């Protein structure tokens, strides 16, 4: 009798122990949601550091409604690991360099999923080129104004030794007043002091690479539109 009780008790404990393992443990999410922020099929380039540009994913049907934050990189791409399910994707309020649009995008995540978030940027900077000869150089680029009602607040020519550069993270940034900028093709002459010249040379010797990028800030936006990254050869 006693033996049976002990055996039964031991067996019950074992079952309880085993079943507990499945109940409160989840596998990690395995589906990937990838996407990009685009205008007319072209990626909209943004500031990529400091968690600046964010998207938010909500999933309804649960008690808590805190969003999952997605960070957008400087080329306008993003990706995140998720569980399969139905999500709602929204931008953050006045977060990016585009016309504020808080429309919800329904996303069905099943396996690897790709989406496109279409926005209307204030400006598009294309064909960036730059050159440097001794102390004098120039940066040229094309500004296309997408939103006709907006005006340019200022622009920047940004120089750095890595590809991750923007208005705040760089080795040197030259602010261009709005009066020097117009839609269409712009050429901005840059004159370096001898100190700047030697420090640029030192950076190039050390990292074998100098990256350049341009940005334009709309008076209505809290972030700038950026060009792609180009390399400066010394």
């Amino acid at each position, binding site marked *: 009798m006693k033996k049976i009780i002990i055996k039964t008790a031991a067996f019950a404990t074992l079952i309880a122990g085993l079943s507990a393992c499945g109940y409160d443990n989840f596998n990690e999410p395995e589906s990937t949601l990838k996407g990009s922020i685009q205008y007319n099929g072209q990626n909209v380039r943004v500031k990529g550091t*400091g968690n600046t540009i964010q998207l938010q994913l909500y999933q309804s049907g649960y*008690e*808590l*409604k*805190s*969003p999952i934050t997605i960070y957008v990189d400087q080329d306008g791409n993003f990706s995140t690991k998720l569980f399969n399910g139905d999500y709602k994707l929204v931008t*953050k*309020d*006045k*977060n990016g360099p585009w016309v504020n649009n808080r429309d919800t995008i329904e996303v069905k995540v099943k396996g690897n999923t790709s989406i496109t978030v279409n926005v209307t940027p204030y400006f598009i900077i294309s064909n960036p080129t730059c050159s440097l000869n001794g102390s004098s150089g120039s940066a040229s680029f094309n500004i296309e104004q997408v939103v006709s009602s907006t005006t340019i607040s200022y622009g920047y020519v940004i120089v750095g030794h890595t590809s991750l550069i923007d*208005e*705040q993270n*760089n080795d*040197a*940034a030259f*602010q261009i007043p709005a009066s020097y900028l117009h839609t269409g093709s712009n050429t901005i002459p840059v004159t370096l002091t001898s100190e700047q010249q030697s420090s640029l040379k030192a950076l190039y010797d050390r990292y074998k690479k100098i990256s350049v990028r341009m940005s334009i800030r709309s*008076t*209505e936006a*809290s972030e700038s539109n950026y060009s792609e990254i180009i390399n400066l050869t010394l």
Partner: protein
Amino acid sequence: MRKFTNILLIASFMVMLGSCKGFLDQKPDNIYNSDEVFGDEVMIKSVLANLYGRVNYGINLNDSYSFTYIDEAAKMDGGPDNLHTYSDALWRVYDYGFVRNCNQFLQSLAETRALTDEQKKPYEGEVRFLRAWCYFNMIRGLGGVPLMGDEVYSYNRPEDVLAYTKARATEAESYNYVIDECEAAYNLMKGDKTTHSARANKWTARILEARAAIYAASLAKYNNLLTTPIQTSGHEVGIPAELASEYYNMALTAAKDVIENSPYVIQDNDPDKGKNFYNAICIKDNNTEVMWAHDYYYPGSTVSFSNANIPSQYKDDIDNSYAGPVLNLVEMFEPLDTDEPGKGAPFKTKNADGSYVFYNSCSEPFDDRDPRLYGTVLYPGGTFRGTACELQAGQLNLVNGQWTLNVGELGSRANDDILTSMNGPKHSNQQYVNKTGFFFRKFLDESPGSSMRNGARSTMWWPYFRISEAYTIACEASFELGSNADAVKYINVVRKRAGVQDLSAITFENIVHENAVEFAFEFHRWWDLKRWRLSHVIFDGDATSSIARNRCLWPYKVVAPGNEHNGQWVFVEDEYFMYPNAHYFQMRNYYNFISDDWMNKNRLLVRNPYQ
């Protein structure tokens, strides 16, 4: 075996029976119910003391790092601070626990018979003032917040929760609530000064009313001057521009009342203007200036500010030199002899041809400035505890006919003179060394033993309101309402006490400047720049900006026997190496974010802009 089981059974029955006698049901002697507490005036006062102890929001004399977020001061302790952007929750207050405790106090006070109705009035006024102060601290960070009124909510079942949740009031309604509550508190309280200004009186309520009104007014005006004003569709953030003049009038009326009728006067009784300014803010005895402060006393309630920040030369314990003012602040103090009064000026360190500017003493450049600089910043050669503060980064020597800067270890000597002083400044990632070239003076306690780590420490108070704010508010409101003459009259009272030239006319920049130098380290500038929508302009994140980047100024002594400049001083200005990044205040920093946690608990809340 069976016998044993029976004994066990009987014993356990006995234990169960015994517990019914109340052996474990003792009444706790450290929990009092409302009737017990509010049946006695002394107990009521101790509840009130608890409320006073909980409202020191934001910068705090026990948190020296909190002084270093903007262009007033910077950390010197240890390695570089990569501070660059601001947190969405910086100085965010959401203290509904405090609001509830105030409401409980008010309810119990109304019910108690221990006090007559006449005796209850000042208590009611005090608590309503404290509740308004708490709301004000929430509103200036978050915009409009849910206004819970006087009701004390109690929980009976889950369905009740929906009844307590309230939507956010508009930003204007929220400021109105604070203003109305201050008005009510003003009428309930007495006007007598309190010991060390630690308790509020009717004038404290009046000056908070003035401050709330000037905040609302400037938000209404300057937010709507932005290209895209910051607002939500329900105006939880964003005060309509047409309300500005009404708020400016309210601010002016309240500030004038304080100036004309309150017992507080601008303290100006020491002929040494710099010392006078320090005494007006930092010395409690016979103070006529401070209207409300968080008071500290020994034993039991002391602050670590002096312990953390005292110069090494004066230290009573191990700690010193945690943080110090930056050049950005120091050069805001205007030169005494200037053609442009009411405006800061850089220090001249180099001539046009690149040669050094020589000064006769290490304090000469600073002695010629607004005496408030002396009262605010301990600069090279400034007197503290009766001796001059040594700040010497190194020597300027003549080597082969070339001026050369030499630096050494702390406390080192060369050429029969000090090379680098024991305080610094020095380029280092060590602790306990000066790095900006300046120390705090405001809030640094001169009394002996004030910088002990344990024991006496400092009993320096933390002033929330000073009478000079009534003048700056009256000045700003008059200016915005178009009366330049009145504005000049008010600002010159403040400037006269400070010991600088009178202004004959006033601009908006003069007001920004006066607030910056008068209230440095007093938790004004952060909010002033926000309400004027200047933060994103000044702290623009541009690494090449001399405003957004912290800068330092280091003194070097000229040691070149035989040279005409021997014994003189030169200064070297530089970007502050401890802060490699510029301050970057983004548009989203104008309002704290509404926490997702709060949104989960209250479905009626709406998010702030940029969130």
